Structures are given as C-alpha cells and as structure tokens.
C-alpha cells in the first residue's frame, strides 16, 4: 500500500468527497484519510503469544449544514464510495436539524502543510531477532523470581499517515510514529496476587519516535527489579490507614493529572456533551479566571507541540498545535477545546479535536497535558519529608462523573521516615476531592525528575473511541491525605 501522504489518488478521493458534500448543501466540510501500520509482539512466560502486523486505511467526512453536524466514514477507497459517504454525512446533518445543537463554528483557516514526526531508527526495519532478543532477556530476568507466575512483555509500533482537507482550502499531511511497550510481573502465592509494571501502568507506555525511543527505557535493566518487587509485595505489610503525607512518583502523578484534572478540563464535558456517558466537569465556565483548582505550585499546560503520543502538528479539524496554560499557579484559566466548544465560552481552540482514527468523529481529547516542574529534586523532596509514604505506579483508579471524588490505588508504597525510604508496603490507596487534594500539594519535583508517560487506551464517546495521550510530570507531595489499604 503506497504512502498515503504522497499518493495523489488519496488526495483526489478526499477532494472529491469535499465537492460532493458541498454540492449536497454542506456549509462546511472536512475530510480525513488515515492509514495506520502496526506491528506488535507479546511474550508471556517465554512464549511469543502474538506476533501481529496490522494495516488499515479509511476516510471520514464531517459536515456542517444549517444547524446540524453529520459524520460518515468508510474503509472503501473508491470515488463512488466517496460520493455515497459524503451524501450520507449531509443527510445525517440534515436529520440532526430536527433538534439542532446550536454551535458557533468558525472553521480553521485553509492552511497547507506537510509534517513528519521524529524517527532515528525505523522500528519496522529493526530485525525480528533484535526485538525477540530484548523481550526474551526481559522474560528470562523476570522468571528468575520463583513466585512470578506470569511474566508479560510487549513491544508495539504504530505509524500513522494523516491527510486533512477542508472546504476552507486546507491540505495538511502529517506522519507520526509511536514506539511503545513494557513489562509486567505478576507474583502469586496462596491466592494473593501482586504485580509490578514498567515503565507505566499495566506495563505499557510509548514515546513519539522510532526504536531509539524504546531503547531509552532500558527495559532489560528493569526486568529483574520489578519481578523482585512483585515477589516482595506478597510478604510486605499492608499500607496503614490514616491521614498522611504522600509523595506520588512521576508515573503516579501523571495518572492523577490525567484523571482528576485532564478530563475535568475537557470543554465538551463542561458543556454537557458527555453527560450521559463519561460525565461532566466541576470546572464550569463561571469558574474561569478565579477558581482555585490547586495550590500555587500547580500549573498545568497542554502542549501538542511536544513530541509525545497524542501530540500533533495540527488537530483533526486543522487547528495548529500550540502550547496553552490551563491552570496557572492553581487558578483555572483555559480548557482543552475544539473550535466550536471554545467559541461557546468565548475562547480560542487549544487544538484538542482528535479522533481515534478515520472511522470516528473528532471529540475534545487530551493531547500532551503536563504539570509544570517545580524546584525540588527527588532527594531533596525525600529529605524534606519526615513522615510519609512514596507511592509508585497506578494499579487502580476511579473517579466520579464530575471528576471530583476519586480513589486511586498504587502497586506499592515505601514508608518515608526521617527523609529516608524504609519498609515496602503493599496495597496503598488514597481518596480525595480534586480541588481539595491539589490544594494540599506543597512540593513539585524539578525538571531533572520530570518524565513523560503515555496512556494507551483513553476511552470516551459513543461509539467509544480509544486514543493515546501523554503526560509529563515530576514527583509531587501532598499533605494530610486519606490513605487506606485496599
């Protein structure tokens, strides 16, 4: 299959779809063609359980008529199908006018661009033997631990070629590559299970780039450690219950950021567009500018220009990616938004209109949402903590429909006493209410301790969509947090 971004027939198909939509009465239309190429390897207890190649391609047409939106998509790349799908999108938009959602919609300007993400070592060219060597070394190291009953390792690579055209004259081509994977060791004894994951939750994360990105994680150097920790957790005492000082490592902070702030900042949720499924948000528009979401140390930005899974040069309605402050030293100042949602509250889009692929309608999604680093190094933060717990790697998370009340559990905790790490503890969990919790943040790690992690399957919408998002954060410390064992 030819590279779509240099295949004139793909552009021709997309432009034809636009023409048909316009001729059928669309006031605005855009067309996205996405080709995805994937390779994944999954090893379980020394056995390569899955070695899969995947390729798919299709196009989606989004139209706006007098008052309604319509979207239709297909994997059939023919002129006849382009006409059918465009006509269908227009008829869907017309049907929407029966009960239209009033939206001020200013389409993105007709930009032309061709962009490509970083890649030093094409992972699709790396030999199978090299990939197996890496997975096998990790697997062998994990299974040295006798009580590790399940050793899991995955590698996966995803290349996307995106074409975007619009009735405004936009022609945007983007090529991005993500390389990901990770490890998970599950230790079992007497009916009790404990797990450790690396580099992030459920043994997966990804970076924007080629095989060189994966090598930076040094998976083989962490395999024995996580297996030993999983085994040790079987014998570790339970986390105690009570109010405590809690330090979240960078991975745990990223998940906290994702669930309690990231989703709350999605403007479509704020406007009630997801009320029936994912929920709403407590960050209602009258809170803009004044409302304190967290302490002075808490500043959150969205930055799709940072090279990470979920980022882009242009979002799925052609808005260029740019950095925007969402929470400024604790105060709510902006949202994750698309063009129509931003217009509804008098703001500009923060380039967060994203679809799972060609087949689904773009929704407001996180891209790369980061907690700005602070001033303390990790050793300094620990030394400054007389009595507390360091929690690492999210194991479970739950939050209410307004993104307020949450419960998070980590894979493990270390006791911190007199500024030093002491006992390993199992089953730590903590609860809180989002703004109260973030108001208790009294330390944020510095740039040296800052790291990015990806979420592989962030779910939203109906029909449901899974997208990758990324977060950057340093370790963070919170006082007087309600801690309890799971």
């Amino acid at each position: 299959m030819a590279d779509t971004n240099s295949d004139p027939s793909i552009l021709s198909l997309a432009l034809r779809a636009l023409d048909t939509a316009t001729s059928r009465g669309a006031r605005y239309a855009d067309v996205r063609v996405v080709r995805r190429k994937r390779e994944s390897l999954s090893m379980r207890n020394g056995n390569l359980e899955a070695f899969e190649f995947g390729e798919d391609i299709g196009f989606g047409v989004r139209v706006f008529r007098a008052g309604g939106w319509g979207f239709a998509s297909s994997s059939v790349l023919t002129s006849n199908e382009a006409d059918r799908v465009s006509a269908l999108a227009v008829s869907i938009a017309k049907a929407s006018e029966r009960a239209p959602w009033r939206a001020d919609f200013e389409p993105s300007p007709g930009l032309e661009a061709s962009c490509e993400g970083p890649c030093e070592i094409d992972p699709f060219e790396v030999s199978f033997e090299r990939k197996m060597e890496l997975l096998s070394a990790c697997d062998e190291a994990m299974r040295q631990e006798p009580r590790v009953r399940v050793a899991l390792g995955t590698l996966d690579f995803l290349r996307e070629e995106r074409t975007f055209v619009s009735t405004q004259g936009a022609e945007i081509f983007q090529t991005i590559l993500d390389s990901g994977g990770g490890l998970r060791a599950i230790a079992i004894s007497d009916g009790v299970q404990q797990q450790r994951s690396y580099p992030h939750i459920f043994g997966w994360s990804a970076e924007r780039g080629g095989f060189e990105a994966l090598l930076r994680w040094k998976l083989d150097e962490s395999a024995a450690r996580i297996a030993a920790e999983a085994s040790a957790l079987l014998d570790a005492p339970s986390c105690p219950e009570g109010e405590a000082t809690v330090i979240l490592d960078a991975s745990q902070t990223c998940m906290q950021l994702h669930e309690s702030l990231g989703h709350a900042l999605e403007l479509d949720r704020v406007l009630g567009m997801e009320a029936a499924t994912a929920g709403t948000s407590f960050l209602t528009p009258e809170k803009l500018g004044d409302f304190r979401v967290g302490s002075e140390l808490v500043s959150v930005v969205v930055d799709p220009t940072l090279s990470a899974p979920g980022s882009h040069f242009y979002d799925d309605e052609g808005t260029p990616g740019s950095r925007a402050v969402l929470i400024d030293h604790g105060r709510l100042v902006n949202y994750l938004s698309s063009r129509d949602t931003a217009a509804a509250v008098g703001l500009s889009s923060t380039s967060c209109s994203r679809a799972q692929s060609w087949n689904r309608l773009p929704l407001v999604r996180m891209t790369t949402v980061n907690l700005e680093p602070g001033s303390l190094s990790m050793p300094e933060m620990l030394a400054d903590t007389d009595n507390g717990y360091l929690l690492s790697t999210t194991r479970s998370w739950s939050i209410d429909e307004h993104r307020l009340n949450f419960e998070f559990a980590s894979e493990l905790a270390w006791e911190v006493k007199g500024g030093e790490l002491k006992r390993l503890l199992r089953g730590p969990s903590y609860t809180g209410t989002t703004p109260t919790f973030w108001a208790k943040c009294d330390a944020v790690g510095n740039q040296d301790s800052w790291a990015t992690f990806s979420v592989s399957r962030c779910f939203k919408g109906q029909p449901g969509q899974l997208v990758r998002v990324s977060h950057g954060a340093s370790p963070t410390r919170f006082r007087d947090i309600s801690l309890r064992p799971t």
Partner: protein
Amino acid sequence: MMSSETLSAAAERLISRLRTQADEFELNVGEEELSSTRFARSCIHQNVSERSFLVSIRLNCGGRIGTAAGNQLGHEDLDSLCALATEAARRAPPDPDWPGVSSFEEISPSSSFDEETASCSPNRRAKLIARIFEYLPRGALAFGGLTTGWREQLFLNSNGVQLSEKRSVSEIRMTAINGLRSGYSAQAAPKLGEVKLDELTEEAATRASLRGSPVDLRLERLPVILSPYAVARLLEFVAFLGFSGSQYSEGRSFMKLGQSVTGELVSIWDDGGAADGLPISFDVEGTPKTRVDLITNGIATGLLYDRRSARKAGMESSGHAVPQSEGADPYPANLFMAPGQHATDDLVGKLDSGVWLTRLHYVNILDPSGPVLTGVTRDGTLLVKNGRIEKPANDVRFRTNVLEAFASAIAVGKDRRLQLQTMFGSISVPPILISSFALGDGLS
C-alpha cells in the same frame, strides 16, 4: 451493504494464497455498519455512521505462528496481507502451545438479523429521539445515544471449516437530568422494534423527577437494590477477572470449581446462541459457542476456554476466544444471570430502609482475588423507606467484594434487562436486593 459474495470472494482469494504458504490457517472476514445519534440537553449534537471491513489471518508455518490484520479487500491488499502473516510466522519461534485449528463443520447460525434495524435511516433515529424529548416532563433534559447497526462475519480455516453469520443490533442509553436529580435507562436488542423507548423514557424521567433535595447517605453498610444496570457493571468485572480457564490455571481467578463462591440465589452462565440475548454462534477460532454454566446456585461450575487454554487444561474449547487485540483471556459474549421470582416493585416493597442504586460509574479493581471493586453511584441513587422510594440521595463511593455482596442477596427480580457490555458482547441481568452493601464517602 456489500454482499456476502464479495466477502466470500475475498476469503477465496486468501485461501488460494495460503494453501501453498501455510500448514494451517484461520481467516476472519467481516463487514460492519454502525450508526449512532447522540443527544445532549435535548439536542442532537453528534450524529455518525461508519462502515468498515476486517480481514484477519492467523497461520501456522511449521509450528510457528503469525498474524496479520487489515481492512482492504482488493486483490493486491489481500496478497500483501498474506505475505505479512507468512513473514510473521516464518520469523516467529516455534510455539509449543499451538493448539491447531478447529474442525467443526456445522453450526446453526443465529437468526438475529433484522433488515429494518440494519437499514435504519438517520431520519428515523432522529425522529425516535425527538419523541424522547417530547415525552420528558418540563424542566428535564435528555442526554444519551441511539445506535443501530449490523455485522456479517465469515470464518474459514485450513480444515475446510466455513462458518457465516449476520447479526443486527440496536441500543438506547439515556439520562434524564432535572436540576440536581437524574435518572438513567438503557436497553439493547437485536431488533430496533424490540427497544421499548417510551417505557425507558418513563423510567429515566421518573427517577429524575423524585421530589425533594438529595440527602446525604451515611457511611455504612446498608441493604440495597442493585438495578440491572448496576448488576451488569459489577458482573462485567467479575467476568473480566476470573471466568476464564487461562486465569484459573495461572492462579489468577477467584473461582474454586465445585465450591461455593457466592450466594445460592446467584446463577450465571454464558450462552452464545441464546435468542433472548444478542446471539453469536462462533468465536474467532471458528469454535461454536457452547453454553457454559459458570456459577450455579452459588457454586463455581464452569470456565470459559479458547483452543489454547483448553489444550493446556485438557479440555475442549467452549468457543470463547477473543481477538488478540482485545486481550488474551477468553471472555463471555452473551452473559446471563438467572432471574428470580419478584417484580421490581416487590423488591422495593421488601425494604424497610435502604437504597436503590440505578447506575455505577467508573468501577475499577482494588483486589482481583475477591474481587473487590470500587466505584461511585450516579443517575438515580434513591432512599427507600417503608417499602417505597422516598427521595433522591447524593451519590456515594462504594467498595465491595462483589461475590460477598451477591452472597447476601435476599431476593432476585424476575425482569432482566439486556444491555451491551463495555468491552464487547451483551449481558442480561435482573435487579437484586442485597442485605449488605458498603456505601460511604458521600460526594455532595
């Protein structure tokens, strides 16, 4: 929609290539159309339709297994996909646990396809939704989505197995919001005509119209009635955590075959062919789905297998293989809990003091061995007093060992509600009156 002949032609092309390249192969070729009309604040805000094909190949070359998946049916694309799968197999190490391909020759495909549902127009969906808006009481707004669609699936393998099936589906989910109060209802069905929109609107609206300001629930263990939506959400996690043979053999499951794992009022089974669910006849390995009684009167009696886990356990596959991209453990596709004898109103009538829980949100796992789950209530948390639903309550967080909670069941409702599962497949469960459920951490 593309004809079955086109899917068959694609399959024949693949077979002609793979016959000479592989010792064994499995092919899944399918076409799907899915349309959803979503609404918020009693307006249609998202309205979509998608059409897609899926071609997946798994093959065995000298004991080495390779997989490839795509969505194009052109000859060059199919040839390329064969080459990719073959290349993957040739590079892979030998797989000592490869169970071979199935050899079933005949199944009875489900008869759940409905042309009217499959061809439901955007106008028709919009009209039905507008009816919901009209039906709601003044002050209440509607949020939700109506979905209709169909899927045609072909399976073929190197043993000459050829299976095909066409299914349709419809689903409505709605939330009625009236100030601080809300109510929820949902239903899935193979035929749109079986979806009871008026009744569902009434159900959601009634919950959202209860008089009085929501009250706080105290942190305590209470008798609760779990609606079918709440039961479904909990049971999905139970299924995810321990109903498969692979989890059992690795020591990851809570199931203890032959032993009591929950209360005697609880019986759970998966039955792919059951017409009162969303029937599906075979899995992605071409194995016919058989009924598996998982829990019978509280006793763990069965497990779900795919070909690999079955071989390891010395069992036969029960037809519960899932695509690798969905996760490795076998999973139920048409899951049921046995109904009881009681009308829903009777369950409420049995409660002197307790809570009705309509919907559970963001349920997640605290301890897989229990399993112990956490989550929050939403869209109709209602105080029950003296056998009547009295007033709304503020939503709360819960933590529960699900099977222990089910073990405290006093009574089970007779009216099941068919719903779509979050991952895939369907689930049909009744409401349950439970004597002890831990609620707390009020969210007001």
